[in-house]
């Protein structure tokens, strides 16, 4: 029982070679089958994720949520899916057909592709590439391309506006996200996902780099395009945005990508900062690692839904100002602190840990002071005009 996933792979390999398939071809076929199984599994899990998210949203809003189709409404997503599949795929006039068809594929691909390097449990990872973190960034950037093409090929000005907003948002927030992803890389000394998890045996990186974790969380929310960063599909402003002309299953693919991305953020945050599959007893029973991993990811995923339900959408100037004037400098500061601590001593030594924690504390103190000064300036800023005496407008001061 020490290596169940390896044993399954070995079993199928033996089966194929027993059928007379050449060894090299057999392992190649097995890899193709593994990739297909992982991708299909991810996509099927969205059936459950969408139902769970709708149920959670409903509870947070004091509603019941889907409860008619099947036990606890669990079959609701399948019913919705059946509806989407049977709907007509509408191609408006002037649509650039091949690009229009390609865009949802790219968006789904960019999310499913990330799961290729996610370590579920010890020795249970599709591909432990030594540049795992860089791979995540590169695959994620393909999604931007897909959304952009969707907006452009639709021949609709609202779709194009949504696409422009998307590029402004996704490309901007990628900068601090990549910067803070460097922090676990520096702490572990590797870009491989398995090595990053293994290095957290003594201490999770969320303790050593709390600011980096929060920054990763915020920027991931923006990359996902969820509230409060859902400017790219603002129903009230630009008639939904980049996917306004999509119908049927092609719209469903954007939908699936967004919901799967929310859980993917949980998986990445767990791997990079929360110790991945590490937990008590995981070395004896590797399957326990899967439970720990999914549990930690689910907590992050749940908090994303909570944020989505609690915060209103921010304006586009606020979105850009937050990124370039606040998150990016902070991310640079955290990276500098981690680099300085890296020079103090090897990983795990007392000196390095102390420098790391004190540095984070100093950065945090400066951040809070800067925020306080900013808030004070906002409070004291002159109002546009002195309000009339008997004002009834909501924005006017009391006197």
């Amino acid at each position: 029982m020490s290596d169940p996933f390896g044993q399954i792979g070995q079993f199928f390999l033996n089966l194929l070679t027993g059928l007379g398939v050449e060894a090299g071809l057999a392992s190649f076929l097995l890899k193709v089958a593994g990739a297909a199984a992982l991708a299909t599994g991810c996509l099927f899990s969205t059936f459950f994720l969408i139902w769970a998210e709708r149920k959670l949203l409903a509870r947070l809003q004091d509603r019941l949520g889907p409860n008619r189709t099947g036990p606890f409404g669990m079959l609701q997503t399948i019913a919705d899916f059946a509806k989407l599949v049977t709907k007509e795929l509408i191609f408006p006039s002037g649509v650039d057909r091949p690009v229009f068809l390609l865009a949802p594929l790219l968006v789904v691909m960019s999310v499913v592709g990330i799961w290729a390097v996610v370590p579920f449990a010890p020795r249970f990872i599709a591909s432990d590439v030594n540049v795992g973190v860089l791979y995540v960034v590169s695959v994620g950037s393909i999604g931007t391309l897909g959304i952009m093409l969707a907006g452009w090929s639709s021949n609709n000005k609202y779709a194009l506006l949504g696409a422009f907003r998307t590029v402004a948002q996704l490309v901007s927030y990628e900068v601090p996200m990549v910067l803070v992803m460097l922090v676990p890389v520096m702490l572990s000394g590797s870009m491989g996902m398995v090595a990053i998890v293994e290095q957290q045996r003594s201490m999770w990186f969320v303790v050593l780099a709390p600011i980096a974790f929060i920054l990763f969380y915020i920027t991931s929310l923006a990359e996902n395009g969820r509230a409060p960063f859902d400017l790219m599909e603002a129903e009230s402003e630009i008639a939904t945005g980049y996917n306004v002309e999509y119908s049927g299953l092609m719209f469903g693919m954007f939908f699936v990508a967004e919901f799967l991305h929310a859980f993917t953020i949980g998986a990445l945050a767990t791997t990079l900062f929360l110790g991945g599959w590490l937990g008590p007893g995981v070395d004896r029973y590797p399957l326990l690692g899967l439970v720990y991993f999914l549990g930690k990811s689910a907590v992050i995923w749940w908090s994303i839904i909570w944020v989505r339900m609690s915060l209103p959408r921010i304006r586009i100037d606020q979105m850009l100002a937050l990124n370039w004037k606040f998150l990016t400098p902070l991310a640079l500061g955290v990276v500098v602190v981690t680099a300085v601590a890296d020079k103090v001593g090897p990983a795990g030594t007392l000196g390095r840990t102390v420098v790391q924690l004190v540095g984070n504390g100093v950065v945090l103190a400066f951040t809070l002071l800067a925020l306080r000064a900013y808030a004070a300036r906002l409070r004291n800023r002159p109002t546009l005009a002195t309000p009339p005496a008997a004002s009834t407008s909501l924005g006017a001061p009391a006197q």
Partner: protein
Amino acid sequence: MTPLQIVFLFVAAFTLLSALLVVTRPNLVHASLWLIAALAGVAVLFVLLEAGFLAAVQVVIYIGAIAILIIFAVMLTRRVMSDSGPQVNRNWWGAALSALLIFGGLLGLFSQVPAVGSAFPAAIANADGLLEDLGRSLVDVNRYVLPFEVASVLLLAAMIGAIVIARPAAREEGEE
């Protein structure tokens, strides 16, 4: 033929075809999409050569940044949906000449690589070590730190230039 060779031939043919379509498609956005396809093909070739780092960098920089920039520029500058203008201008001979020169130069360079003669290049023994060496050489004073820093200063200058151009000339309006 091993599966690897079949995949290689397929990807190589796909890359070449995409590169051809980049220059022959009349629609600029389609051309840039084929450019992305060609760049992705090169990334897959890197993967087949077990150069995972180069493959990831290829996707991040060329597809994630440069191709998106090109598409963005095309979308913002021209009415490409109905664009069917001439595909060549009078500088085509210069472009053809430089392409030929680069191709010849690369061919000459590759003919000096020892692995070119062998049927199938052997796998690199210490790929991670090579990667570490690449990283160290970029920050080593005796090696490539100067070109590396010059490149970053160039990028910084371009960024400042863009900000200067985008800035309104005087404080006409706005709170900032």
